[in-house]
């Protein structure tokens, strides 16, 4: 959408209308660039494929390390797709229009994060059972894997949004983004992979799922504000 159209669209409309139009627009843009949509997913699959090749095809070993592999791959795939969250909006000026809009920036950012999750996180969720099967995760544990990914991938988008917002104005933000975001992803990795490992060992997983849920709730309430503040700084 042309920046001027975006402003006109936003100045006259209600908050819910603005949020809805952002969501619709982001999904539409993603749909029009389907190949870009597929890339992180392809990456996710390839990374997972590399591990059996690099380690050993032994099903026993694979099922032990599978939760970690799937989660690390999901982390990297989410990180790769992060850059796209604000990049094109920054380049064509839409982001500045959003900053100028009368609606709270944190909510607009939250909508963009939601769109990013729908575009990048949900496909990972759909792909995960297949990859879990390839890595010999037992069918009972696949449900837990999905549950952790369902709680964890929005968390990755939320945390990632802050780091993307900090680096959006930089010409070469890619590697820097990974340096900033990966340490912050560690708790998600620990609880996500830990829950699946526990499930495979027949242990209780409610603790890890509860922590992931708590982290998600916390990030949901705070990360949009931090990302909005970071965007204001980056765009100066």
């Amino acid at each position, binding site marked *: 959408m042309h920046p001027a159209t975006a402003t006109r669209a936003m100045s006259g409309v209600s908050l819910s209308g603005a949020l809805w139009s952002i969501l619709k627009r982001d999904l539409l843009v993603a749909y029009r660039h389907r190949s870009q949509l597929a890339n992180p997913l392809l990456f996710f699959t390839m990374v997972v494929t590399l591990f059996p090749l690099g380690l050993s095809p032994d099903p026993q070993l694979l099922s032990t390390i599978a939760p970690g592999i799937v989660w690390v791959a999901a982390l990297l795939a989410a990180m790769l797709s992060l850059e796209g969250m604000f990049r094109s909006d920054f380049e064509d000026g839409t982001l500045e229009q959003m900053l100028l809009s009368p609606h709270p920036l944190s909510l607009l950012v939250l909508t963009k994060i939601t769109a990013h999750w729908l575009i990048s996180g949900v496909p990972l969720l759909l792909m995960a059972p297949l990859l879990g099967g390839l890595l010999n995760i037992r069918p009972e544990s696949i449900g837990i894997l999905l549950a952790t990914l369902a709680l964890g991938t929005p968390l990755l988008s939320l945390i990632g949004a*802050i780091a993307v917002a*900090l*680096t959006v*104005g*930089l010409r*070469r*933000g890619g590697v*820097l983004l990974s*340096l*900033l975001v*990966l*340490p*912050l992803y*560690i*708790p998600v990795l*620990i*609880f996500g992979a*830990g829950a699946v490992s526990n499930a495979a060992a027949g242990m209780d997983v409610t603790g890890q799922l509860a*922590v992931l849920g708590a*982290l998600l709730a916390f990030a949901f309430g*705070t990360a949009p504000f*931090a990302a909005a*503040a*970071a965007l204001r*700084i*980056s765009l*100066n």
Partner: protein
Amino acid sequence: MLDTMWNWLHKLASPPMFYRFAGPAANGFGWLSLALLLPGIFLSLAGSPPDYQQGESVRIMYVHVPAAWLSMFVYMSMAGAAVVGLVWRIKVSHAFVRASAPIGAAFTFLALVTGSLWGKPMWGTWWIWDARLTSELILLFLYLGFVALQSAIEDRDTADRAGAILVLVGVVNIPIIHYSVEWWNTLHQGATVTKFDKPSIDWRMLLPLLLMAMSFTFYYASAALRRTRCEILERERNSEWVRELTGGIDAVQ
């Protein structure tokens, strides 16, 4: 009383005032650090008993533990200064945050190296994926991420505020990372000094430990103020007072 203190703080926020104050203050803290370091080193190397289990290698503790404390203390002071800088838009505190980061990273690195040296005789390995070691390593990553972000952004003002946001996000995450890693795996010994009711450490060991910790803290204060001074000079190189200070020589861009 409160008014005069507030006024003084207010004045300190101006770069030339801070510059003038920080010089002698850095010297004072530096001497204080040295004065505590000498007895601290003597007591930790010679004046304290070897541990009944760990033998002489326990002496690594007198560097390791203060360095680990400082690694967290520096991050906390950076976070405090970042809030002040963001809320009141005080340039000096942004300069302080930027000046502190490499020192904090150095302490974190020191804690990791001494921990590794201590781990070899105690646990029989240089590195182990233990909770505290891992979260210390992640803390190092956080410091390095901050430095990388600061050096990637060319505009100083943007770099300052973006860095401040990153430090605050980091400070919220440090406890989360710490506890998640703790749940994940624990081999490290528990805290021994902070158990106030009955510390499980002998006072002959506690005394040098505290001396070293205070010395490290004053060293940090001294080094951070000194670096902040340089940072201020660089930022204000085109201002009147810096020109006067340098005798009218035009600063080279």
